[in-house]
């Protein structure tokens, strides 16, 4: 070995879940108690779809552990003034004093009431990371559960800059919090900006590499030639925010330029609502007695309820039916002999004008290309073919369509998600082998069992936990500041709903709550962990200012950063290689994590905690003790807040609720429960076993990758293509809001269309300059962003090795400009350029490339740090400071998109 031989060498198994594409498994080489190297966990190669490996980010964990800039002692602020220009005056304090200060605030809140005058929780918490911080925060979720109402809706990007529209609509249509192709068997993939080779993680990258060699043809449709485009068979440089037009044209080709028989007619008739009759008011025609939606039975030559056995429903046509049409709030709009058009028929009409010739000038992609791609998609779909999976025969449709960020969020996100799902449904490729699959559920329950979340609901569809919009149950008194329950029916009301609401609204409304909502207040105490909204959200200057006005911030701090710059208390927790936690792995999970195993993996201390860093579990337990919440805290752990319920049929490893347990005791109990769960009670191995083995799994059926069998078993249909329920909900929501005089959400209400039309989405962004009283032509460029695998999920910005290796990937370190555009503007490679929006500007070095549209600029990642050590010296621009938080650019689900119109000018040379 290059290193001097150590006295002792250990290899410690742990997991990496730094990004949502994980978790993945690794080993840490520890020489004489010092972590020196990260390696794959080769013992996991047989069960991990990424061969037991971890990506580049995990190799930064050694430097992360020994980063000299780590906060290694609790700190308190001595300068009462907060702001970017204020030195916090952090001084080290003891843990005892830190707990005293935090508990004092918490106890005062408990005494005065957990909700403030506006009805919002006085305690707020922001975690960022798309849920991944939960795999690092030990039993802190149990503390929050014990506390009571907590506002987790001050976002750092989640719910807005994430796959947001896809999260909500995906879960509605096919239990798809995120969507993945069935990569191992897919043959043809249309990827609208899905940047798998940057963000797909270890498993995504491996699956796609295997698929490429096998012959998967991916067409990457994206304004710039991303690392994913580089690894694709074809790159189509589409104009930003026009993806819906491309998808609509694709549907047009399937419907109007090919024989009807080329589509998967049996699937459409039996597994979708295509045959449902739609009345003249836009609602389903329903059986007057049972209120079930009607179809026209070709055999009986009459309208019958959709679930009539042996019916052969017509896919197209206009029919007369004895029916009732029910509108919003249960109002009977019409009854009697009513004319209904099939939903499929309405789709045909809706798509008639959306030809490739229509889409071409919108998308800036030739019509012939759009047509060719559509016909290739159809040809590759293998309609009618089957495959056997674990003894069951399923349809085989090896084509898929995926959407990336900026496509599946913000205005146009609904249209893209809808069109994508309709397109794959037309060939029967939804939730079947080879096709387009959901990965997991976060809104539907249970979260650990996607297949189990398929339950019969109304009208032959799956249930969905909509927030109610009927008069009796809707409320303009939201439970938290981003008002998701009030404004976004699709956001449901589960543990994840807060972060899936319009999280930028909480920030915006602090300085002016619109009519009808209780005034948005500052939380009295804000917990912040693995989250840096002052860098990662929009309008970063405004966010920084607002954070400065939070009265008391408790930041679990790895290093100083731009958000904890305004904190009152910094608490150093045991970071990745020092802490202890057990998490679930396997099954199916976001991005491309499709396993044939499921189980648990341990994160265990590879090294002793540095400085005074403490394990998050111990911090949570102590906070519980000092705030009189020990019993409900332990009860929450017993119930499963630490990842596995400690008691079930046949075993009981419950903790004594009256005691303050150490982290080893708590996680030993969780490990025993995990062992018992996986072996149906046969095993009860605890922490020592997991420390030695690292993980434990059992078989997970690959049949559960696909939702189709569950729908067939339960006789259910996919709620497509016609969005009658969403249309109704939109009408009801509108009535509720208008009853309160709330008209500021009307633009968003307009999105609730049963068949969404194309809107000029780019124009919505183009008008921002006009709104500011300026000339749109002065902001001629689209500014987009893209993922960096090396930096993703933020905390890696201060890690030297990440910075060093990322410099090998084009674009890190500046703003990517089309070479011809740069030449036209007199900009040379490396020149200093200024990128501006109305009222805001940033600067960076020009990186000239051919692989980007001439009208588009690209800033990779999220930088412009000014406090994070090491990163603050990068001088790399970020788009976040340029993008305003705007209601105008917020869609119905409360999401936005990382997109803005900018100007570009040279301001200096290379030096």
């Amino acid at each position, binding site marked *: 070995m*290059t*290193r001097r031989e150590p006295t002792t060498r250990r290899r410690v198994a742990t997991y990496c879940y730094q990004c949502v594409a994980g978790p993945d498994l690794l080993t840490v080489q520890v020489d004489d108690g010092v972590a020196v190297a990260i390696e*794959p966990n080769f013992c996991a190669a047989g069960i991990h779809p990424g061969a037991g490996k971890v990506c580049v980010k995990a*190799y930064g964990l050694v430097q992360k552990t020994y980063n000299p800039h780590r906060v290694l002692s609790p700190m308190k602020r001595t300068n009462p003034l907060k702001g970017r220009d204020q030195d916090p005056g952090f001084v080290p304090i003891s843990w005892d004093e830190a707990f005293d200060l935090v508990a004092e605030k918490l106890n005062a809140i408990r005494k005065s009431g957990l909700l403030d005058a506006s009805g919002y929780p006085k305690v707020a918490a922001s975690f960022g990371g798309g849920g991944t911080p939960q795999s690092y925060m030990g039993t802190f979720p149990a503390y929050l559960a014990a506390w009571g109402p907590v506002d987790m809706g001050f976002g750092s990007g989640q719910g807005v800059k994430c796959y947001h529209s896809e999260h909500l609509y995906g879960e509605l249509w096919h239990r798809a919090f995120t969507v993945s192709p069935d990569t191992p068997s897919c043959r043809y993939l249309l990827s609208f900006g899905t940047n798998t080779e940057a963000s797909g993680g270890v498993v995504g990258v491996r699956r796609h590499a295997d698929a490429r060699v096998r012959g998967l043809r991916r067409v990457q449709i994206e304004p710039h*030639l991303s*690392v994913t*485009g580089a*690894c694709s068979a074809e790159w189509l440089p589409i104009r930003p925010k026009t993806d819906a037009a491309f998808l609509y044209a694709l549907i047009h080709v399937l419907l109007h330029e090919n024989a009807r028989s080329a589509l998967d007619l049996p699937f459409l008739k039996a597994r979708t609502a295509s045959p449902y009759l739609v009345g003249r008011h836009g609602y389903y025609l329903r059986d007057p007695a049972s209120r079930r939606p009607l179809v026209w039975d070709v055999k009986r030559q009459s309208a019958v309820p959709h679930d009539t056995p042996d019916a052969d429903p017509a896919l197209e046509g206009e029919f007369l039916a004895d029916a009732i049409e029910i509108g919003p709030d249960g109002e009977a709009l019409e009854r009697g002999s009513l004319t209904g058009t099939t939903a499929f028929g309405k789709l045909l009409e809706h798509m008639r004008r959306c030809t490739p010739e229509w889409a071409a000038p919108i998308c800036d992609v030739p019509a012939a290309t759009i047509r060719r791609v559509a016909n290739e998609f159809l040809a590759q779909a293998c309609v009618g073919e089957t495959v056997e999976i674990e003894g069951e025969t399923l349809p085989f449709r090896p084509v898929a369509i995926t959407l990336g960020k900026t496509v599946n969020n913000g205005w146009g996100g609904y249209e893209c998600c809808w069109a994508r799902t309709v397109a794959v449904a037309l060939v029967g490729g939804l939730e079947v082998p080879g096709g387009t699959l959901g990965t997991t559920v976060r809104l539907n329950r249970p979260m650990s069992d996607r297949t189990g979340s398929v339950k019969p609901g109304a009208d032959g569809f799956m249930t969905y936990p909509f927030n109610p919009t009927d008069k009796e149950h809707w409320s303009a008194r939201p439970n938290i500041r981003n008002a998701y329950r009030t404004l976004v029916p699709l956001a449901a009301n589960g543990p994840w709903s807060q972060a899936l609401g319009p999280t930028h609204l909480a920030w915006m409304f602090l300085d002016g709550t619109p009519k009808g909502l209780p005034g948005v207040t500052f939380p009295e105490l804000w917990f912040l962990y693995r989250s840096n909204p002052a860098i990662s959200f929009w309008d970063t200057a405004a966010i920084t200012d607002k954070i400065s006005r939070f009265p008391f911030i408790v930041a679990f701090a790895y290093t100083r950063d731009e958000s904890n710059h305004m904190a009152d208390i910094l608490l150093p927790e045991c970071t990745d290689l020092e802490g202890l936690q057990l998490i679930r792995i396997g099954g199916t999970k976001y991005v491309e994590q499709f396993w044939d195993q499921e189980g648990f993996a341990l994160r265990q201390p590879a090294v002793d905690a540095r400085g005074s860093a403490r394990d998050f579990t111990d911090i949570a337990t102590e906070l519980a003790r000092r705030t009189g919440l020990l019993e409900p805290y332990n009860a929450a752990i017993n119930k499963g807040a630490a990842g596995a319920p400690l008691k079930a049929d046949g075993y009981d490893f419950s903790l004594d609720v009256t005691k303050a347990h150490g982290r080893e005791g708590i996680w030993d109990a969780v490990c025993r429960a995990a062992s018992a769960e996986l072996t149906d009670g046969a095993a009860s191995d605890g922490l020592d076993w997991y420390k030695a083995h690292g993980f434990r799994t059992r078989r997970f059926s690959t049949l559960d990758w696909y939702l189709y069998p569950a729908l067939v078993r339960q006789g259910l249909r996919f709620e497509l293509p016609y969005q009658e329920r969403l249309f109704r909900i939109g009408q009801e929501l509108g009535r509720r809001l208008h009853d309160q005089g709330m008209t500021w959400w009307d633009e968003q209400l307009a999105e609730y269309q049963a068949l969404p039309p194309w809107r000029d989405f780019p124009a919505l962004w183009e008008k921002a300059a006009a709104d500011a009283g300026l000339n749109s032509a002065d902001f001629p460029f689209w500014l987009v962003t893209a993922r960096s695998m090396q930096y993703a999920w933020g905390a890696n910005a201060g890690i030297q090795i990440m910075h*060093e290796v990322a410099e*090998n990937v084009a674009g890190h370190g500046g703003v990517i400009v089309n070479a011809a555009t740069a030449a036209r503007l007199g900009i040379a490679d490396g020149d200093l350029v200024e990128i501006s929006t109305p009222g805001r500007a940033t600067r960076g070095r020009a990186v000239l490339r051919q692989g980007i549209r001439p009208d588009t600029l690209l800033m990779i990642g999220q930088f412009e740090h000014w406090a994070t050590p090491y990163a603050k010296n990068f001088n790399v621009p970020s788009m976040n400071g340029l993008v305003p938080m705007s209601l105008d650019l917020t869609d119905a689900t409360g999401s936005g998109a990382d997109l803005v119109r900018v100007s570009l000018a040279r301001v200096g040379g290379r030096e």
Partner: protein
Amino acid sequence: MTRWAMVVDLRRCVGCQTCTAACKQANATPPGVQWRRVLDMEVGEYPEVQRTFVPVGCMHCDDPPCMHVCPSTATRKREDGIVTIDYDLCIGCGYCMVACPYQARFKTDRASFAYGDRPTDAEDKGFDGGRLAVATKCTFCVDRVDAGTAQGLTPGIDPEATPACVNSCIAGALHFGDIDNPASNVSHLVAGNTHFRMHEELGTGPRMYYLWG
């Protein structure tokens, strides 16, 4: 006769630099020294553009130009093909760095660390003053290969005997093995796929084979 070689499957490489980082960590190289790294190459003109990622490093050439110019005999070639540098013999003249057509060699004159002039605990464990002011490069993780073969393990198959970059590659793009063994993993890959070697026309006989097409 064993002849170690690497196969790089360009159909798989995604340019993630995981191998770059894994190599740095396994070999404790200082900031800026990348014995293995991945080039990000773009050709064509918008919109007809191609972008490709190319892992590079020492090719452990059959006829290494670095060895011919070395005045101190520090650079040598083993029978199994691995080109080695004896740091104790190297005088740091840098001729080899100029001679190498693959930009594979590095020289660091002063100790440097990730976060300034003091090593972290981890860097301290790997610091080797004998590697200052001398040429360094990819060794095909020769220590792992030798220790592994001594235990009867197969480099390229058994991870403990395999170069760190190959172990780390998340796309499965890197392979290592005995190219003189027709039944080896690398031999099968080369025989079964279109491939090329870099700067072959220079007559260096590089032992990194790139799969393409």
